C-alpha cells in the first residue's frame, strides 16, 4: 500500500463531557474502499465528524501525511475530503442544482467536477435539477448528498450510512454509484451498519466496538470470523 490518504492514530473524540472515541487507529489508502462497521451508537458517525473537525477531538489525523488535528473544518475539506453526512443533510429550501453548486467550495481545484459530469453519473438528478431538495425521495436525497460531495473533486469521500432506510433496490444503486466513484480513483471510507453493500464493494473492513477498532481485515476474513461478527455486529 502506498502512503495512505487518511491515517488515524490514537483518535479520541468528545461531546462535552462524554468521551466517545477511545483511541482509534485506521488507514485508507489511495483509491481504496474501506468499510467501517459496527452496531448503533458505537461512534462511527463520531469518527466521520472527528475527521471533518466538526466535533472536539484529540490524537492524530493525517491527510496525505499532513497533520490536520489543529485545522478548522473548511481547511480539512480543502485538503481533498468530501463529506456525505448521516441522514443525507441536503439543504432544504434550495434546489438540487443549488445543493450541488454548494458542494464546490471556494478553493476547489482543477479536480472539481462540473454539473454536467455529475448529471451524467446520475441522470435522474438532471431531471430534478430545479426541484427543492427536501421533496426528493430518500434515495434521491442520498444520491444528491453523494454527488454534492463529489463536486469539489475529493480524493477521499467519507460516506456515513448511505443506505439507511432505503429499499433494497435503491441500496443496490447506491452501492453501484459508490463503486463507480471509486473506479474513477476516489478513495472511500464507507460507514455502514448492515453488511450488504460493504461486503460487496469494500477492499478492506474495520469493525468498531466500544469506541475502538476491534477488527481489521478483508471482507472474506470477516465473513469467516464468526466470533467477531457475533461479538460486535449481530444483534
Amino acid at each position, binding site marked *: 500500500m502506498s502512503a495512505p490518504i487518511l491515517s488515524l492514530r490514537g483518535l479520541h473524540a468528545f461531546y462535552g463531557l462524554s468521551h466517545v472515541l477511545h483511541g482509534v487507529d485506521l488507514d485508507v489508502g489511495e483509491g481504496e474502499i474501506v468499510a467501517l462497521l459496527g452496531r448503533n451508537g458505537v461512534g462511527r458517525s463520531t469518527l466521520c465528524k472527528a475527521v471533518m473537525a466538526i466535533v472536539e477531538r484529540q490524537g492524530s489525523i493525517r491527510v496525505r501525511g499532513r497533520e490536520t488535528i489543529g485545522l478548522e473544518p*473548511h481547511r480539512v475539506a480543502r485538503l481533498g475530503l468530501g*463529506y456525505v453526512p448521516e441522514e443525507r443533510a441536503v*439543504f432544504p429550501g*434550495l434546489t438540487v442544482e443549488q445543493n450541488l453548486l454548494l458542494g464546490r*467550495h*471556494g478553493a476547489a481545484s482543477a479536480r472539481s467536477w462540473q454539473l454536467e459530469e455529475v448529471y451524467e453519473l446520475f441522470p435522474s438528478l438532471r431531471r430534478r435539477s430545479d426541484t427543492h431538495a427536501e421533496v426528493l425521495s430518500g434515495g434521491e436525497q442520498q444520491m444528491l448528498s453523494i454527488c454534492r460531495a463529489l463536486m469539489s473533486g475529493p480524493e477521499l469521500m467519507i460516506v456515513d450510512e448511505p443506505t439507511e432506510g432505503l429499499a433494497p433496490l435503491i441500496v443496490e444503486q447506491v452501492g453501484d454509484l459508490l463503486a463507480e466513484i471509486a473506479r474513477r480513483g476516489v478513495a472511500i471510507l464507507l460507514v455502514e451498519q448492515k453488511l450488504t453493500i460493504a461486503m460487496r464493494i469494500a477492499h478492506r473492513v474495520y469493525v468498531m466496538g466500544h469506541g475502538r477498532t476491534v477488527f481489521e481485515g478483508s471482507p472474506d476474513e470477516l465473513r469467516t470470523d464468526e466470533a467477531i461478527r457475533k461479538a460486535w455486529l449481530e444483534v
Partner: protein
Amino acid sequence: MDTFAFAVVNGLLYGMLLFMLASGLTLIFSLMGVLNFAHASFFMLGAYFAYQLSSIGNFWMGLVLAPLLVGLLGATVERYGLRVVHRHGHVAELLFTFGLAYLIEELVRLVWGRQPVPYRIPEVLDFPLFSIGGIDYSAYRAFMFAIAVLMFLGLLALLKRTRVGLMVQAALSHPDVLWALGHNVPRLFMLVFGGGVALAGLAGVIGGNYLVTEPGMAHQMGTILFVIVVFGGLGSLLGAFLASILIGILQTLMVAFDGTLTDLVVSLGAAAPQATGPFREIWTITPANLAPVLPYLLLVVLLIVRPRGLLGTRET
C-alpha cells in the same frame, strides 16, 4: 377619514423602519442562535454617526458611510467578541450582547452628551410632496419609504440570487455540513452579523432625523423590536415583516386618535358608560396613552394563545 389614511401611511412607514431592524435581528438569530440585545444600539450608532458625518460633510455622506462604519464595527464585535464568548454557550452570548447594549449607550452619552443632538432632515428633501385634506406629506418620508423598499428588495435578491445567499440559506439548516463541505462558515457568520447590524445602522441614518437622535433611542427601539421578533415568531423573516407592519400601524393609529375611551365606545355605537366608582379613571384614558402598552399586551396574549409566535417554528 383623511387623518385615518394619513395615520395608516405613517404607520406603514414606521413599520418599514421597524422591519429594517427586525430583518437583520431575525437573520442573525436564525443563523447563529443569538438574540442580539444590542441590535437597537447599532441603530442608534447609525443615527449618531450620520449626524456626525452630516455635520462635517453632508447627509448623503452619512447615508453611505454610517451604515458601512456600523457594519465594520459589528463584524469586529462578532469576530473578536461573540465568537470567543460563543464557546461558553448561549447564556454567555446573551449576557455579552446585553452588556454591549449598555456599553454603547454609555459611550454615546460620553461622546455626544445626554441631550438630543440636532440631526436634521436634509434641506433638499424638506418640502411637502403632496397633501391629503390639508395635511402635508413630506418628501423625506417618501424618501425613507424608497430606501426601506430598496433595502428589502436588495436583501431578497442577495439571499435568493447570490452564492453568499445560498450559503446563508444552507447554513440555516446544516451549518456544520456546510462547513465540512469546505465553506468558511465562521466568516459567513461574521458577514451576516456585520450586514445585519449595518441594516440597523441604515435605519438609524434615515430614522434618526425623522424621530429623535438621543441616548435613550436604543432602549426604546430595543424593547419594541424584541416584541416584534417574538410576536412574528423567532427566526421567521415573513413573521417579522408582518409583525413590524402590524405594530407600526397600530401604534401610529392609536397615537393619532385623539379622544378618550368613552369617545371610542360611543363612536362604536354603544351608550356612554357611567364614569363612576373606583375605576372611573379608565374612561378618561386616551388611546394615545395606551399606545406604548399595546405591543406588550399583544405579545402577552399571543404567547398564551400561540407560543411559537405568528409564524415561528420553534417554541419561544
